[in-house]
């Protein structure tokens, strides 16, 4: 059936600065698959577990002690909104993983609240991802993933796990929360990899 709704345009889409199928928003929509965890920084920790089972651990003061970067990036949500030039502060995964001994190809990000998402390890390195704890010069709000979230802006934003608590590195690719329910295992917005098989 091909019914066109007369006069319906939907949110304005397109523009050369946007990936295909995205529309521009100036708001910051809150998407959530569950209740918002409220993790106090004194209880917060971030761990990296390697394929051999070795665990590296940072608490909040340890994260704060690491060199932070100011990040300005466009973000693209698979629900079709894009937001340009968002500003963050956080620690590069290059810094966190510098002393981690691993030959793994894949990472699974785990969050407080149970969310997971999978990424190739190489997409977390070389200045492509951060553990972000400030947005727009303010501490990251819990509804946007505070106290700290993963930020991987070159992939659809579901990969930027809110309330991140750790990475588990592996030689094999496992699928995360949305990736096991039909979303693309990689999620490149410029190739419009929304769903499995795209």
């Amino acid at each position, binding site marked *: 059936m091909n*019914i066109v*709704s*007369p*006069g319906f345009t*939907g949110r304005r889409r397109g523009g050369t600065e946007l990936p295909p199928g995205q529309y521009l928003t100036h*708001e910051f929509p809150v*998407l959530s698959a569950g209740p918002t965890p409220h993790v106090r920084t004194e209880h917060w920790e971030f761990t990296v577990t390697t394929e051999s089972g070795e665990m590296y651990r940072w608490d909040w003061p340890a994260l704060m002690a690491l060199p932070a970067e100011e990040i300005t990036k466009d973000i693209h*949500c698979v*629900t079709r909104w894009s937001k340009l030039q968002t500003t963050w502060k956080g620690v590069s995964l290059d810094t966190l993983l510098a002393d981690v001994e691993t030959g793994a190809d894949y990472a699974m990000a785990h969050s407080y609240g149970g969310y997971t998402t999978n990424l190739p390890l190489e997409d977390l390195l070389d200045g492509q991802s951060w553990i972000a704890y400030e947005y727009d010069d303010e501490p990251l709000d819990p509804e946007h993933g505070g106290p700290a979230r993963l930020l991987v802006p070159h992939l659809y934003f579901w990969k930027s796990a809110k309330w991140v608590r750790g990475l588990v590195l592996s030689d094999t690719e496992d699928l995360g929360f949305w990736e096991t329910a039909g979303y693309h295992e990689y999620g490149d917005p410029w190739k419009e990899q929304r769903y499995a098989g795209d």
Partner: protein
Amino acid sequence: MERTAIRRRLTWQVGTVTDVRRETETARTLVLEVPEWQGHLAGQHLDVRLTAEDGYRASRSYSVASAWTGDTIELTVEQVPRGEVSPYLVDVLKVGDPLEIRGPVGGWFVWTPEQEGPVQLIGGGSGVVPLRAMLRAHAAAASTTKARLLYSVRRPESVIYVSDLKELAASDDVDVRLVYTREAPAGEPRIGRIDADLISQYAFKPEDGATTYVCGPTPFVETVADLLVAAGHDPAKVRTERFGPTGGPR
């Protein structure tokens, strides 16, 4: 309604807008003729799907506002600020336009005239829409079941179905009580949300064995459901439906 009418997989079908009625500054009722419609129960909802010229689609769920009497169905849509679908339905769609719908759906938040015991309806804002369908079904069946509606609105201008509710309330078996949270009309001293006092004063008592239907934004529904349970109502006889704006197109 025959069970067979809902025991099938649903697909999208096309209705035509035959009339529109402005209810408030931000809400409009659409009257639709849907040739394939197989009827619905009061309280059920349907999904509306819009398609742009370039194939872009957005869909949302709306409660049916009318009882099924064999001809048309009505939807009442409240405009969501910065929404995508509701502004189109409230301001753009016109008589004669097609509208794609899928339904009816939902088998829990429904009332049928055969149901035993009194019926208590509690609505917040446009949460009154499915409750109005229940009162319409009550009237259409000339039911003598006792029905009460508690309808919470911000101010007098926010009331939808003003004349309709007056007409329904004229029945000896139906009682309608409006609750104003921000501004009340002259002669109404009470301004404030539904609270325990109001429930004990205007709702059926737990021993009356009523089934209660609560519909509105999530915080409203949570508050009212908690008040009912705290007042001794059986949680199994409290049915709820929550709505809210959605973050983006799906």
